[in-house]
């Protein structure tokens, strides 16, 4: 583990530069402000967890990173900026499809397409223009292997993805998201709809994934944050209360608010 970073501001000056940087960002849905003055840096090949009570804006923050909020009418960043690999993603010359190719996402509820397993994984490559069969085959095998599905599914790649179990479906969604080899993988409460065993498998997977990708995960489960993440950010009412290495945040929180949330004595 690298040396603990005391503040997000300090992180921006260290090398290598953070893959995602959120600077002084305000975000609102129409008139209502959802996020206020957010500063966050996400390091390469680390798992960063966003925690906080319901409605604190953690999912909104996650969706700011791949501009998924663009589809909501009236939703916009009103101040500050979001940088991915040093580039402001709201610049006019940013191609949204390229951004999303580099910032993959896994949703709360598994959502494989009603296609075959193979086509699900290959979808991302296909829409970015890949037609070469051997490239696609190779990517499907690599992604499914990463998602710990290859051994189970290699003989039925051309059957419907909807026939898989819930945990397998979610891992298929992860495979689909990493098939385009993104730099960052956003995960929005990926285990909240899964049973404990499936959850365990995905958590194991996350450690593996961190070797190749940078993971940002939203979770409402604090134990999970402890188990999987290197850094944790605690949000409350649209503000980033504390951002620190996970161990530090959970054992020795600096803010009283963090402490009371961790202890479960939230007013």
């Amino acid at each position, binding site marked *: 583990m690298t040396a603990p970073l005391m503040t997000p501001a300090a992180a921006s000056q260290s090398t290598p530069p953070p893959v995602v940087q959120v600077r002084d960002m305000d975000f609102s849905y129409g008139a209502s402000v959802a996020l206020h003055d957010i500063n966050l840096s996400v390091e390469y090949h680390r798992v960063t967890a966003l925690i906080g009570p319901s409605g604190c804006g953690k999912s909104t923050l996650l969706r700011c990173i*791949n501009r998924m909020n663009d589809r909501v009418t009236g939703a916009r960043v009103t101040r500050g900026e979001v940088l991915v690999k040093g580039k402001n993603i709201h610049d006019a010359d940013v191609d949204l499809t390229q951004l999303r190719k580099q910032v993959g996402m896994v*949703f709360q509820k598994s*959502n494989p*397409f*009603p*296609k075959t397993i193979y086509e699900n994984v290959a979808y991302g490559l296909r*829409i970015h223009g890949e037609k070469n069969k051997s490239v696609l085959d190779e990517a499907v095998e690599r992604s499914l292997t990463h998602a710990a599905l290859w051994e189970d599914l290699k003989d039925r790649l051309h059957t419907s993805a*909807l026939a898989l179990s819930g945990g397998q479906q979610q891992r298929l*969604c992860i495979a689909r998201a990493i098939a385009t080899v993104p730099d960052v993988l956003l995960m929005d409460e990926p285990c909240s709809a899964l049973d404990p065993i499936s959850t365990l498998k995905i958590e194991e997977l996350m450690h593996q994934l961190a070797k190749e990708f940078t993971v940002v995960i939203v979770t409402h489960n604090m134990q999970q944050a402890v188990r999987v993440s290197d850094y944790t950010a605690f949000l409350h009412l649209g503000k980033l209360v504390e951002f620190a290495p996970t161990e530090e945040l959970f054992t020795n929180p600096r803010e009283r608010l963090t402490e009371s949330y961790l202890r479960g004595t939230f007013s």
Partner: protein
Amino acid sequence: MNSSQTPSRPPLRSVLLRSRKHTILGFDPQKLIKYFFGSNASVAIIVLVLIMVFLMREGVDFLPTYQRELQTYRRAGLEFCDIIDQPLQRNQALSSSLRQALSASLETLSKTARDRRDAAFQLKRQVEDKTARPRESLTQALEKTPPPAPDQIEVLRRELKEAATSAAKSLEYPDLFTAAEREQLQREFAALTPESTDMPPLLQALVAEFSAKDREARTKFAALVTAQEEFEEATEPLQEVLDELKAKALETKEKAVEFEALETNRLRLLEAAAKETDAEEKASLTKEAEASVAEPVNMEERTKEITERTAELREQVEKYAGVVEKAAAELPQEAGTEAARRLINEVRADIPAHAREMRAAAARLDGWRWDKPVSIFSVIGAFFFGTQWITNSSWQDFFGFVPLLTGSLVIAAIAIVIATPVSVVAAIYTNQFASDREKEIIKPIIEFIQAIPSVVLGFIGISLVGNLIKDVSEWSWLQWVPGFPIQERLNMFNAGCLLAFMAVPTMFSLSEDALNNVPRAYIDASDALGATKLQTVFRVIVPAGISGILSAILLGLGRVVGETMVVLLVAGNRIAIPDFSAGPGVIFHPAHTLTGIIAQELGEVSRGSSHWQALFMVGIVLFAISLLVNWCARAVARRFEPHKA
């Protein structure tokens, strides 16, 4: 017992009693409400069952009735005559082709002369129309008794003369006439009087000119003239024999039908008499029954009179075939125009097959037996695969289902081919690309189409679409389209267009629903992978909604097949299998439909007749088709339902 210990709770027994107080006619109100709702739901099912039972009851008798009719058709010898008569019909088609070729050829020489003659007569008629009033007054004056004063008549004559002169001057003389001829015509028209019965000299000359040209043309194309005449006359001796036999057969049939009617009547009267208790009534009924006696027809003997002449008939057929083949050999290679030459070649190519068919028919005559029973299977075949729907015929009614089915299917296919892209694309646009404001405009407008009464659409089809299609089909740069220029304004394409219009709301709304039902999560996933809007629509949303779209198309098909008013008004109502040899241009031919035939004929047939029953059979088939289409739509929706795999 326990309850008695706690005073706040009523004892168990009293609770039971209280509920018994609230009964209606001994029923628990809760149950009554349940039955009420249940019965409302079952009304729909009961009505459906009743409809099916009613249709079946009326239609199912058709097969035995038709079987009896076909039996009579055979036993009376009508079938025997038709063996020869049906292939002989081909002669008329070939003849008419030859006539067309001939007149086209003759026209190459005589057209100008004929046009000049016709134009001159047309002009004369115009002058007569314009001078009708003075002419009438003069005629009346001349016929009066006693005749009016000569000077009075003179005045009227002058008036007529003046009117005729000015009328003749005001006419537009076509370029067919030279300047001198125009002047002469004008003079002759001005001089027309009621007494002049002779044609003016120039008109006479024009008539003569045409006759001369026509004669010349007939000499030039003498070979064609003779061949055509020979061909047309070739049928005469055969037709003579055949007509004799047909008359005989028809007489037998009529007698048999009459006998059967009287016999049925007699049996009914006797039955009534047997039931009657009053002696006087009984006697009168019996008497009436005795009066209703007809002479039974000896079918065997009468049919024998027909079959006895088989040899003669065969001989005539053989002769006919010979003459026709000879005429084919004599058909000239050359004709006046290219089209005429093509027609002649077609006829030449067709004649050997026609002659073969005639000879084959003649060979079948010997195998024909008057008393061979008509099996129920052949009756079913005659209905479902029969190619003729002929009713109110003096010869024989045939209820063949194929022409109607073909019409219905072709029209439905046209409608679906047009409506599917329109409604599916509109649904995709509205669901995925339109702004909320556009949605608010598009959806109600498309759904409003459903509210247009179909008779109004039919009216539009007759008055507007028909003329439009006909005009467009005459544009010279569109002549490559098969079937253009079209002959009939009312045709299957016209009906198909209007039905497509009617099917669009159903198909649009259901497709839109199907797209709406595609889970939001699919779109999220696709967006998050960096897909563009179009990629998401065509790679994820449409494939996921395809089952709903297919079932929307099928339900649209159900609507189209069952639609009546538009096809009745617009499809042209010709009861014949459309001529598929015209290729894709067949869609511009008129046709009749399953629904249209019921609407058109059911009101006019007598209840319980075979025709009535046949229409009910058509209704049953229509009902079955609708059920099948709806069942398919449901099956498709289930089969391809991806969200529940």
